[in-house]
Structures are given as C-alpha cells and as structure tokens.
C-alpha cells in the first residue's frame, strides 16, 4: 500500500524497490524450500502409506517393500518420547515456576540458572548422545549392575530408559521456555488478588496460576515431544537398535526408531531405487508424528503470544 502511494507522490525509488524486492524474495525462497520439501514427501509418500505398512512387524530384511512395515519403529519412538515426557515435564515446569514466581530477579544464581537453560538449548545433540553414554550407561548403568550383582551388563548397555533420560535432558529448555512464556502472560493482578485474600504463594500458584498456564505448558510438552521424536543423534549410542525381532518389553531393552530407520533406509539400502517407496512412506510417518505436533504447538504459541501482547 505504501508502495503505491510512493509511486504517486514521488519519483520511482529504485533502491527502495530493489531492496524490498530482495528481502521479500528471501522470505519467498524460505517458504518455497519448506513447500518443496513437504510437497515432495507428501506426494511421494502418501500413495505408499498403507495400513499394511504401518501395522507390520518387518522380518530381518526390512528393505523389501513387499513385506516390510514400520510398526516396531512407531512403537519404539512413541515409547521413548512418552517416557521422556514423564521425566521432563515435572522438572521443566517446576524450574519455570521457580524462575518466574520465586527467583529474585537480578540475583547471580537466577542468572546462572538462565544461562544453564540457554546453554542446554545450544548443546549439539550428538554431545547429548555422548553424555548419555558416558553418564547414564557407563556410570549409572554399570554401577547399578555392580550393586545388583548382575552376571552380565543389564543396565550398563544401551536401553530405552537411558535414551529417554538423555532426551529429557535435551528437551528441558524447550519445556522451561514455553512454560515461562505462558506464566509471564498471566496478569500480575490475578496473583495479587489471590494473595490479598490471604492465599499463600504456593496456593496462588496451584489454584490460580497453573490452571491459566496449562495451554502454554501443553505447548511446551508438545514442542518437546515433536523435537525429541525426530532426533536421532542422541539415541544413536544410548538405546536404538538396527533390528529387533520383538518389541521392547522392559526398561532395559533396546528399541527400533522411526528417525533412525529413515537414516538406515537412506544410507544402507542395497538398492535405493527399490526401497525408495518405503523410504518415502517412512519419512511421511515420521513427519506426521513430529510435524503435526509441531504445527499444533506453533498455533497455540501464536495465540499465547497474541494474548501476551494484548495484555501489554
């Protein structure tokens, strides 16, 4: 609209036109990349996504398009993400409550906690994998084995429990940041009203603040799940299996995983042309799992932000 007025009222401004075009083009290009990736996967994946495919446990040679399926991978990914949520949500939410409701602003300890949260968010995922191996498996797991006098390694080896814990550490900042954002969006007046009636701080948080923050906490949980579901690097050494004949039944079992399966199908296939359809279908399943969740989270988050802005 401004552009049109400019044309009418003043000389054609080439620089303005050029740079507006350039930045607009950047935006379009990013959108195009997203569209091409998604479009390509949906177009090629959708026809191959059959009920048989998602409900079959594959035989050892899972590269054969006729007999393969991704049921154990879907189950494996779901289990590890679900367990991670159990670990990460309470810790993340409580930390966010401390940071927004209790932490004295400007104290050095608060700043260190915030710095730690930011740092956790920036640690490369492969380093989380190393941490899981070095801490959970080699330190905790082996010591558990020793204490329990297990004849062979039971806990001192990759397991779904360790993978979930590693992912929980990794996604903690996601939950903390989202929860904090929603806690901050709650007007101070509500807390004051509750305190002025004689509620304690804890009663105020439990009865007034948390119910209001629930959508934000859910967003945080969903974002964490979506992030974790697609991550492969942290589970490489902590629990994922190339192939397992049976589904995981114990916490100390390994598991198969959708993301890792995408990696295996793309890089280890004996005949990539033959496996291409199942590869696309697997990617689509993974995307549906992670991306759909992410989409929901982004929508909720946009609404929370809008509310935040409206409250000033």
């Amino acid at each position, binding site marked *: 609209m401004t552009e049109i007025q400019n044309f009418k009222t003043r000389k054609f401004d080439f620089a303005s036109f050029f740079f507006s075009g350039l930045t607009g083009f950047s935006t379009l290009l990013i959108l195009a990349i997203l569209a091409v990736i998604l479009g390509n996967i949906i177009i090629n994946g959708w026809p191959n996504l059959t009920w048989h495919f998602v409900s079959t446990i594959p035989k050892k040679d899972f590269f054969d398009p006729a007999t393969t399926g991704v049921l154990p991978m879907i189950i494996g990914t779901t289990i590890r993400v679900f367990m991670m949520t159990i670990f990460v949500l309470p810790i993340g939410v409580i930390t966010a409550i401390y940071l927004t409701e209790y932490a004295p602003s400007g104290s050095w300890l608060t700043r260190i906690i915030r710095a730690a949260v930011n740092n956790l968010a920036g640690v490369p995922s492969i380093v989380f994998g190393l941490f899981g191996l070095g801490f959970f498996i080699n330190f905790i797991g082996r010591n558990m084995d020793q204490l329990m006098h297990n004849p062979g390694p039971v806990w001192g080896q990759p397991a779904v429990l360790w993978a979930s814990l590693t992912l929980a550490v990794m996604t903690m900042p996601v939950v903390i940041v989202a929860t904090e954002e929603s806690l901050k969006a709650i007007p101070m007046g509500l807390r004051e009203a509750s*305190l002025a009636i*004689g509620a304690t701080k804890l009663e105020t948080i439990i009865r007034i603040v948390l119910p209001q923050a629930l959508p934000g906490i859910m967003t945080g949980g969903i974002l964490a799940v979506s992030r974790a579901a697609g991550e492969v690097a942290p589970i490489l050494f902590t629990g994922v299996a190339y192939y397992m004949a049976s589904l995981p039944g114990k916490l100390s079992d390994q598991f198969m995983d959708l993301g890792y399966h995408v990696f295996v199908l793309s890089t280890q296939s004996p005949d990539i042309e033959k496996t291409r359809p199942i590869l696309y279908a697997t990617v689509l399943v993974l995307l549906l799992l992670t991306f759909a969740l992410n989409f929901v989270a982004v929508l909720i988050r946009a609404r929370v932000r809008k509310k935040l802005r409206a409250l000033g």
Partner: protein
Amino acid sequence: MAETVLPKLEVTPQNPLVVGAGASLIEISNLSLFYGKSRALKDVSLKIRERVVTAFIGPSGCGKSTLLRCLNRMNDLIDGVRIEGSAKIGGHDIYAPDVDVIELRKRVGMVFQKSNPFPKSIYDNVAYGLKLQGVTSKGELDTAVEQSLIGAALWDEVKDRLQSSALGLSGGQQQRLCIARAIAVKPEIILMDEPASALDPIATSRVEDLILELRKDFTIVIVTHNMQQATRISDETAFFYMGELIESGPTQKIFTMPKQKRTEDYVTGRFG
C-alpha cells in the same frame, strides 16, 4: 451524608497528624519506604480510626497507593523494598518479624484499581478465600457466597448465573464481585486502591453507595484521584505529596479549611 455521623474532633497543633479522635485501629508512625535507593514514603505518621472511611488523596506518584499497600504488606512482593518505622494494627506491629503475612492479609482485604476476578465462575470467585481457609461444607459456602454477594449489592444481578464465568460480567459488576470476594473472608479492614477509576459514572455511583453501606461493618481505607468522590464517601482524608503526608483530618475540614497551602492548591485544583 458523611458529616452527620462524624463525632466532633479536636486537632491540636501538637498532634496534627491524628485523623479524627476516638478508637484508632491503624497507627502508622515514622514510616519510610525505599525502592532500592529511592525513597517513596518519608516519615509518614497517621492514625486511622475504626469503622470510618478514610480517603488518601494526592497527585500521582505521591505515595498514597504505596502506603495503602503497606497495610497488608503487598509491597513485600516487590524486590528491593525496604521499610523503616512502624505500622500497627490493633496495637500489633505488622512488620514484626513473627508476623504471618498470610494471616494478616486474611484480616486486611484489598480491592484493586483494575478489577481482577479470577477466570472462574462467579460462585468460585467468592468462595475462593473460604476454600483456602479449609471451608468445604457446601451449605456453609452457599450461605457465605450469598451473604457476600448481598453485601456487595450484586446478588440480585447474578443469583441466577452463579456458575457462569466471572469474566462475562460488566466492569462495574466485576469490581463489586471483587468486593464480594474480599468481604467473604470477613476481614476487618478493606483497602481500596482507586476502585472506581476504571468505571463509568453509573457503575461508580453504585460502588460508592456500596462503600457507604460497608462502612457500618468494616474499616475502609480508600485511595482516590477523584476529589468529589473523596468528599462524597469519606469521613476522613489524608493528603499526600511527594511521599510525605501533608495534612490529615475530617474530610469536610480538609476540603473547606485546609491548613497547608499545598493542600489548598490541590483540593482547589491548582495542580495534580
């Protein structure tokens, strides 16, 4: 109006800061409040009597709201606030180290400038304070909710929709709901921080009528910007300027024969 119930009072030059005479409930002496290094209140000394309406007036930033929030220690919520001097209620220093702030706030209720009902039902808003105190009996809660809503002159308007959201009420109704919520826990003192400043004239006059009604049962301290409002509803008035208490006394005296030049300038509208 207010002056009919006021007892005759003596303000001596030796004790100019006594508001009214008779049984004083709140005694503030040499109270100073600091936000970090800046001083928001300077040596305020004031007595507030039981079951009258006391108005705090003064230009914005004069410290009247800050003083009000000292009386139920809401200032504790702000980082870096420091207080010197003392504030006593019923002879007990509310800043004594063994005071339980929660217990204090149960006895000193508060109504805020911006109405802030909880995003719950009307019923739950009023019952909130009682539930906190461990009241669980449905009958007891029902009675208390009804009485409080009647007390806040809201019962007739909401009795058919107690379970609907409080956020659906109009601004004036919300503010009266907040008053009902405050009186439900039976405090002895109600602090009001410009309770009608966000309301239209009709809603304002209803809230003012309510305050005059509540005065029979509660000690009310109200901060207001509106000088007509102060004359309409308060028995006694304290004028603040730049963190200091300039003058206090019976309302009609403050407004008709102020002793201080600054008070006169303010009440006659020369600044503020």
